[in-house]
């Protein structure tokens, strides 16, 4: 068995396809791609596809890691080409390589958030990001029950930069990601909206990379 890590970009309207649906989509894609897949045992065997970290609905991704398992080796370029031949518009395999890090090593996500200047000014955005008391509601678990928790967002902003030189305001931000705690930029913008008292929704949000604890790129 050979595990290979695919890095997938997800751009354009396909960003509205949820994580759960992406999972099924990738399972079917690998089947169509005619690569030597390893199937799970059991009565209803399916190919092993592991999506390392969910991408929130509505967010684009440039380098989303997915692990698949093969029964025999196949050159990386071959796997990449075969997958790209069958993926729907908006999805592309950017690279294929042996996994380097363990999935648990994912610690942060780096994002670019584009905002319309008619929705918010650079000053308003900076003030909100600096205020130290941004909060949002996040669903969590208490035992087996689903509950809503108020999260202090400000505490979790690892770093950010705001650039308003272009037609839109561009916010670059690094937020916690991984199996233990996640905060996504849409939640961050909800917190900003709550503070401003009006809805500010970014027309475009992109996860550019996943990072390890030392902020080196997850591979």
């Amino acid at each position: 068995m050979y595990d290979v890590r695919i890095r997938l970009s997800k751009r354009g309207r396909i960003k509205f396809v949820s994580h759960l649906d992406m999972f099924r989509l990738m399972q079917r894609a690998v089947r169509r791609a005619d690569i030597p897949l390893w199937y799970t045992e059991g009565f209803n065997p399916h190919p092993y596809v592991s999506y390392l970290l969910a991408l929130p609905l509505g967010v684009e991704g440039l380098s989303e890691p997915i692990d698949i398992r093969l029964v025999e080796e196949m050159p990386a370029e071959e796997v990449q080409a075969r997958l790209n031949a069958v993926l729907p518009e908006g999805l592309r395999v950017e690279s294929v390589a042996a996994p380097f890090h363990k999935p648990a090593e994912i610690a942060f996500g780096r994002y670019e958030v584009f905002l319309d200047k008619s929705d918010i000014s650079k000053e308003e955005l900076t003030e909100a990001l600096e205020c130290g008391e941004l909060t949002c509601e996040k669903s969590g678990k208490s035992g087996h029950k689903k509950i809503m928790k108020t999260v202090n967002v400000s505490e979790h902003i690892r770093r950010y930069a705001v650039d308003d030189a272009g037609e839109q305001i561009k916010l670059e931000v690094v937020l916690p990601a991984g199996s233990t705690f996640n905060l996504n930029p849409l939640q961050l913008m909800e917190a900003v909206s709550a503070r401003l008292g009006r809805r500010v929704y970014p027309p475009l949000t992109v996860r550019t990379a996943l990072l390890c604890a030392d902020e080196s790129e997850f591979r």
Partner: protein
Amino acid sequence: MDKKLEKILPLVQKPARYTGGELNSVVKDKNAVDIRFAFCFPDSYEIGMSHLGIKILYSLINARQDAWCERVFAPWPDMEAQMRDNGIPLYALESGDPVAAFDIVGFTLQYELCYTNVLNMLDLAGLPVRSKDRKTLFPLVVGGGPCACNPEPMADFFDLFMLGDGEEVTNELLDLYKAHKRKGSSKTEFLRDASKLPGIYVPAFYDVAYQEDGTVGAIVPKEGAPEKIVKRVVRDLDRVFYPDSFVVPFIDVVFDRVTHEIFRGCIRGCRFCQACFLSRPIREKTPETINEQCKALCRNTGYDEISLCSLSSSDYSHIEELLSRLLDWTPDEKVNIALPSLRVDNFSDELLQKLTGVRKSGLTFAPEAGTQRMRDVINKNVTEEELLETARVAFAGGYSAVKLYFMLGLPTETPEDVQGIAALARRVVDEYYAMPDKPKGRGVSVSVSASNFVPKPFTPFQWEPQATREELKEKQTLLLHSCPSKKVNISFHDIDTSFLEGVFARGDRRLSDVIETAWKQGCIFDSWNDHFKFDKWMESFAACGLSPEFYANRRRDYGETLPWDHLDYGVSKGYLERENEKAKRAETTANCKIKCAGCGANKLNGGHCDV
């Protein structure tokens, strides 16, 4: 993607229903085609994308160089609200272009309760709902599907209907449309020619007069339209177009798999079953063709399940051969086979073995009625012993959940027949516990689904009154009280919904007003319980001065002109009348394999049925 659309999508549920861009969806250059066709399904994306007919016609139209077919579904009310608030008209998924810009807007009418959705979609597209208010050749609004067999309640909204199998007539219609578009014809000029194509029904070319008692008096054609419109039948299923790829939805839909139709028609002739009579004569596809087409579909979609569909799969003459062929390659490709619509009476041990080798899930049977007398009336030729024997085989094969389908309110039904349903369900439970080596610690679960009988056109029961809402209520209560077993779980269908279905199934043109009124009162998605507004419907009937009971609960006599009498589906009225008489005597009719009962449908196929 449209900027306005992009802004609202984060605000609605399951936005991937509205984006398009799915695998195998077809995008063409709109300037390089002559005809743009918007295929509309008047229900949610999940329901529409599960439907086989839309997949066939989508691929068939897109196989033409000169045409581009796109898909349109009814937006869910949350999306509709956003669209209306933001001035986004109904658009097609492939191009995102407004439906009003298309040449032809085609609706498939799968069930009566989708009618208000048709109006709502036309309105969302910015089009007048009534045919007479749409003056130009485009968009032309056309309809097809099972409800086209009596489209009268929708007659005022459509420009034309296509009756029967759509594969050939669709192409003929597109050819004709293209010629007229080129000539710059008026809508009437086009419709006049279209009405001469076999299988095309232009409702505006028929004047309907009513008698004092409210029944139809005469149906008179004009503009040279034919007296009778005969439905279309594809003769050779092996050669007719079948897609080699399906659009693969992003989101989970009701049936998300390769579906393959193995034959058309049904040999059984159960007297309540409209699907059977509408789809006759019986035509089969060869196992070779089915196998090859399934292979291509699996390869092009990545689906891991094939569903062999037909009205009664086990009646397919080559079922064993087909399964062998499929099982040659499906296990290696990790593809499952599902065979819905199996009948209990020829569900062989061997067949069961083959299928269980592939997949085990719940089993469903449709005895439809609880007593032998009642089953004889409806011509469901299955005995209790056969049903129990099948249950035994299934239980021994490891199944422990069984679902049984019944109908309430069948003609001549007595309280004993209703109680018989409970008794039969109990006997199935007993069968499980009588097994010598039943699995320990696992109980059996028998669910009974009791729907309400709705008399439909082109069936032997087309003259029968539907049981009233009160009667149905009593029957449901009786069934519930006669079934104390905890192992049996009974579920019912909504009575008001069935009543409305009964009204529209056998309705006439005057109901167009009721449908429009109800839609204006906010009725949409009527087949969804949480959207169904029965009171608004009743108000609409009253406002239009029409009685729903007149349509649903009245017995017609054989001499009455029925609203669909000018439509010919092959099955003769004489045959239906004979069958109705036999039903009254609880006499059965043998299936077509044993003896042709002379239903008349084979005349549409050169006198031939594949039996």
